[in-house]
């Protein structure tokens, strides 16, 4: 016979403000099987847990219902608490009367009645709970890092330094990410490359790290500790084992007019290329869309004529050019994954008032970084893209693709106020006679030394800050006219500029949603990863064994990305410090007496957890491999003979909840 104890939590005033907790506890005493009910201010506190443990002993309880917050919050806490009292942890169920009741209903009577009904349903369920035992499985102590920006680099180095094997997959030909494109970093004005490139080299030479650039993750199967990942290694047409990175091929490549991705279109590159001089690995790839030799070979196959090139092949001193190289798929096993896929900047061509991206002298902040950079396309000279002249007046626009519902980006991109201030300062350093104007909505400079930095730009560097959005930019006599409103003075303003720099905001990296779906983690409307808990589990995703770092979960600056990467690395090291993982015992189970061997379950199972077993009489029935089953219950709903059930969510438990609610 079930002897159920019900414990109603006040959660301070979070529940008690709208739910009469003592009254609810009193009402539950009449529910079938309930032999004890109590209410308490904070059940999750040590005293609250003691209250539950003592009651289990005193009233010989064999089932417990904790009516408090969401089980997604405190289920592990209370499972542990009842286990310490000698009860099987799976004989505890939570009734969510906070998130699903007290927080969303203001009427005390309505909320109290609803809380009572929620508990009635859970009491009916827990009466049908069975003790469950977790199983142990081994794990592969190897980490996969997706993304080679600063977050991915930091995470990979931290875990590799702890002694574990790491594979880093980066889709572009080099690691370094966006940070490698920056000239200086705010607010210290460190040279970005100077602090980043030593890390990149350290990573490429680390004995515990396997670096795979120009590669993408194709599929992820398995579960925490045992992921099976397919990685696509794109053909580079260069044998990286023999290539020394001497540079002959990219210096001699005749195709010199490809817009450089690394320079955000401000410069040109060759078809055989390294993205920038300090690239890691410092070996080229041949961009197959533009390489004349590759195009010649493709044309030949189609029976068309195109001039042969093969300059790099003829000149390569190590004979490393390999036209036969094909895309390759590598299958590997990992115990954990860190997703650090980074970000892209907002495409400002949707703004008609800024010229739909058609005015050459309206550029983005990232493009300005490349112009200011000594290794950039202009060797660090800031010039107008249209005529190559030095600008004397530069206007900055903040919040382009940030805090703007109109373009579907209501969030703040966090870094733009700071990088715009940095740009205004750097321009003045480049040319003291330059005049800078910044149109802004609010200055958001929260961070150590950030506010001081913005003040310095205004006071010492004489940048004019104008509060208001720009309504129109148009070209006139070789200059750009910027019309807007100064909302502090309440009057229209017009500024003439040689160059306009848009502080474009952060958006999810291209292909982010596809990647999240491939891995099976949840993401928000904008393509950023949802954390397991925004406050308390900020680097975990809702899939065990998959962690996140950097802008994958939303806008972040470099220090935040690096901290998150190290935090994710610690989580991985914690996981890898175990020799066995305990698996969730809430798996499907077959009643082989009822199974008729139709194997519909095998067909619907996404994880191939259904196996076939031949009984002694020759009958073939289903069996569930419990270490592979993830407990979704698809097979249970598909089974026509009711031979399958899902432990923890049995048909009986779920139907008991329906009945308890509606028959009351």
């Amino acid at each position, binding site marked *: 016979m079930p002897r159920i104890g019900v414990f109603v939590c006040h959660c301070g005033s979070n529940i008690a403000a709208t739910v009469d907790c003592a009254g609810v506890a009193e009402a539950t005493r009449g529910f079938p099987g309930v032999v004890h009910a109590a209410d308490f201010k904070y059940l999750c506190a040590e005293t609250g847990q003691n209250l539950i443990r003592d009651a289990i002993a005193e009233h010989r309880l064999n089932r417990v219902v904790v009516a408090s917050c*969401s089980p997604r919050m405190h289920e592990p806490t209370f499972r542990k608490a009842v286990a310490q009292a000698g009860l099987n942890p799976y004989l505890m169920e939570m009734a969510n009367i906070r*998130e699903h009741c007290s*927080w*969303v209903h203001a009427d005390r009577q309505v909320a109290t009645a609803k809380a009572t009904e929620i508990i009635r349903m859970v009491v009916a369920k827990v009466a049908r709970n069975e003790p469950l035992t977790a199983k142990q499985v081994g794990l592969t102590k190897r980490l996969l890092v997706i993304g080679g920006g600063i977050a991915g680099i930091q995470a990979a180095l931290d875990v590799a330094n702890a002694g574990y094997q790491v594979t880093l997959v980066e889709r572009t030909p080099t690691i370094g990410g966006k940070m490698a494109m920056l000239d200086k970093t705010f607010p210290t004005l460190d040279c970005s490359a100077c602090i980043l490139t030593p890390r990149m080299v350290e990573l490429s030479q680390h004995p515990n790290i396997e670096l795979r650039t120009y590669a993408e993750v194709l599929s992820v199967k398995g579960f925490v500790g045992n992921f099976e990942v397919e990685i696509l290694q794109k053909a580079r047409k260069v044998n990286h084992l023999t290539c020394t990175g001497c540079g002959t091929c990219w210096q001699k490549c005749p195709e010199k007019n490809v817009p450089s991705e690394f320079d955000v279109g401000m410069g040109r590159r060759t078809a055989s290329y390294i993205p920038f001089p300090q690239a890691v690995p410092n070996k080229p790839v041949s961009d197959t869309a533009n390489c004349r030799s590759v195009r010649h070979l493709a044309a030949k196959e189609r029976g068309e004529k195109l001039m042969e090139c093969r300059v790099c092949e003829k000149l390569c001193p190590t004979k490393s050019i390999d036209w036969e190289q094909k895309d390759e798929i590598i299958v590997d096993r990992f115990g954990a994954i860190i997703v650090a896929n980074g970000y892209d900047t907002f495409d400002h061509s949707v703004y008609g008032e800024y010229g739909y991206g058609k005015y050459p002298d309206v550029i983005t902040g990232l493009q300005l970084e490349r112009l200011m950079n000594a290794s950039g396309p202009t060797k660090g000279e800031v010039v107008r893209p249209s005529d190559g002249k030095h600008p004397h007046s530069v206007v900055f626009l903040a919040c382009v693709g940030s805090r703007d519902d109109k373009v579907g980006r209501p969030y703040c991109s966090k870094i733009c106020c700071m990088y715009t201030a940095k740009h205004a300062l750097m321009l003045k350093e480049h040319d003291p006679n330059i005049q800078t104007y910044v149109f802004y909505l609010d200055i958001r400079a929260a961070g150590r030394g950030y506010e001081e930095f913005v003040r310095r730009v205004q006071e010492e560097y004489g940048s004019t800050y104008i509060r208001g959005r720009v309504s129109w930019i148009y070209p006139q006599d070789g200059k750009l006219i910027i019309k807007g409103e100064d909302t502090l003075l309440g009057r229209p303003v017009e500024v003439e500029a040689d160059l306009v720099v848009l502080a474009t905001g952060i958006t999810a990296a291209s292909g982010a949603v596809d990647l999240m779906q491939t891995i099976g983690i949840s993401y928000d409307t904008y393509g950023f990863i949802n954390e397991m808990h925004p406050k308390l589990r900020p680097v975990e995703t809702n899939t065990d064994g998959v962690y996140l770092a950097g802008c994958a979960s939303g806008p972040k600056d470099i220090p935040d990305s690096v901290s998150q990467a190290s935090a994710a690395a610690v989580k991985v090291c914690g996981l890898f410090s175990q020799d066995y993982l305990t698996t969730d015992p809430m798996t499907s189970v077959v009643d082989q007496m009822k199974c008729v061997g139709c194997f519909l379950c095998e067909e619907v199972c996404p994880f191939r957890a259904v196996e076939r077993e031949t009984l002694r009489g020759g009958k073939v029935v289903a069996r569930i491999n419990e270490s592979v089953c993830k407990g979704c219950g698809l097979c249970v*709903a598909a089974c026509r003979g009711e031979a399958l059930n899902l432990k923890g969510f049995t*048909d009986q438990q779920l139907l008991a909840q329906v009945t308890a609610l*509606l*028959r009351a």
Partner: protein
Amino acid sequence: MTSEFEPRIVGFLCNWCSYAGADLAGTSRTSYAPNIRIIRVPCSGRVDPLFIAKAFQEGADGVMVLGCHPGDCHYVEGNYHARRRFAVMHRLLDYLGVDKGRVMLEWVSASEGARFARVVNEFTDQVRQLGPAKRPVHSF
């Protein structure tokens, strides 16, 4: 009077998206109609059509099944199975004499607290308009 009528609604919510979305509505203090009673299931694909039939048989006025958006299922494809079963279930409802407006399958992600509240409000209004449900059959 039907204006006084408060429908009884059972909601089967998948643990990973919609249940978390309902949690988020709570955390954000987004209030909504109190009629729904939530049953947590691992996946919308766990919902046996029998549960829906059983709910009506026991006197529910409406049943909601909420899962992850297509492509986002924590179990890869559970919500696709839910969608197919639901389509079949729809036809069965006719046979049972249950108005199709009394059931709803929707997608609510873990970040859509406000959407959860809106979907619940709309469905509650819809069922309130339909009035109390007649029990389809008394036993299976």
